[in-house]
């Protein structure tokens, strides 16, 4: 890094994370004079909180994928579907693009998100200085993509609302959908609690 790299923390300043204004001497407590948000030099307890949420999400990931998300009754015959069986259904009907969308949003994204967060946590705890910029991009991507995992929850909601043809066809939501929604929400909070500035902190100590 160039020697001109001076951070806000070095000068006892803090950028407000809600409105962006640069504030003087906030330390760990204080309030932004412009928008009133509480100021943190670094997000409080970032690493411990993120670990806790990542572990919680990993635990819920299992029932989310193993329990059925829908129960379909059709002409007296009931069928329960998990997320994966939904993907396989689309593949068996030759609907590759849709199978790919559901697989990516519901299976791959939550799993990759957890793996990326664990990787970022471990690298920050080891005070790694390896490819800071790429790790920041990885974080940015993880934070942005998480919301798309909600798609299966919405699909279930729409199916439940529409398919109410009595004995002919009826769809009810399963417990898997609840766990799945929990996984998505917990991983969103996990990404939010991670502070990407921690990735860059080992740089500064080099100058001291």
């Amino acid at each position: 890094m160039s020697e001109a790299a001076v951070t806000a923390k070095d000068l006892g300043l803090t950028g407000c994370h809600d409105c962006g204004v640069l504030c003087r001497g906030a330390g760990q407590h204080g309030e932004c004079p412009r928008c009133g948000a509480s100021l943190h030099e670094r997000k409080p307890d970032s690493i411990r909180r993120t670990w806790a949420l990542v572990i919680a999400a990993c635990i819920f990931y299992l029932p989310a994928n193993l329990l059925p998300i829908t129960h379909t009754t059709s002409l007296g015959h009931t069928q329960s579907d998990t997320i994966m069986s939904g993907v396989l259904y689309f593949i068996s009907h030759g609907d590759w693009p849709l199978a790919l969308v559901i697989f990516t949003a519901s299976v791959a994204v939550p799993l990759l998100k957890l793996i990326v967060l664990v990787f970022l946590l471990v690298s920050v705890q080891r005070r790694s200085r390896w490819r800071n910029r790429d790790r920041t991009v990885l974080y940015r991507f993880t934070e942005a993509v998480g919301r798309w995992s909600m798609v299966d929850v919405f699909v279930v909601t729409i199916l439940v609302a529409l398919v109410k043809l009595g004995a002919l066809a009826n769809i009810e939501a399963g417990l898997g959908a609840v766990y799945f929604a929990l996984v998505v929400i917990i991983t969103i909070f996990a990404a939010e609690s991670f502070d990407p500035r921690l990735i860059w902190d080992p740089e500064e100590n080099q100058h001291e």
Partner: protein
Amino acid sequence: MAGNKRNDETMPPTLYACHECDLLNRIPPLAADQTARCTRCNAVLYRNPSECLERTLALALAALALYLVAVNFPFLSFGRGANVVQTSLLTGVADLYRQGLVLLAVVVLVTSVIAPAMVITCYLYLLVPVKHGRVPAHVRGAYRLLRAITPWNMIEVFLLGILVALVKLAGMAEVIPGIAVWSFAGLIVTLAWAAGTFEPEVYWHEVESCQ
């Protein structure tokens, strides 16, 4: 008129801490439609969209109209012959609640109905008084509420869900999209556009010049 002052105005230079790597950036004056990026990690620091606040206000008003149609009019209909089920945006939430999946109902209600309404309300509440040269009461709280609720507005994901559900049901019976679906799609575009034109840095400059 305070509202016209900012058109294509250059933003003054500032010192700005990157929210992703904490580097202090010295930002030169920013001409209209320019973006300030962090010199170390390339994160977007802030932008200077031309006619930022006017456009956001116009889009928020359009979003309000589309939202009211999306919530109140028929959403999707499904069935064959005389056996047709008509739904509104809220039908699914009510059904999940009835099936005992309260948590799931709340999640869907917040992400597809409450959050967009709150985002629109916040935009209007923050921007209408400023347009007339006044600072809204509790401007700081309203701004922070907007920031907090925005990530939970997931209507674009909901639309993808509709598309997937349509394909899934295609073999069973006919699905007829109602007028609410089209307004819902329009709502996604206007709200995403509004989020793209709204720039906190411009807004707070305007608030400070009103005070």
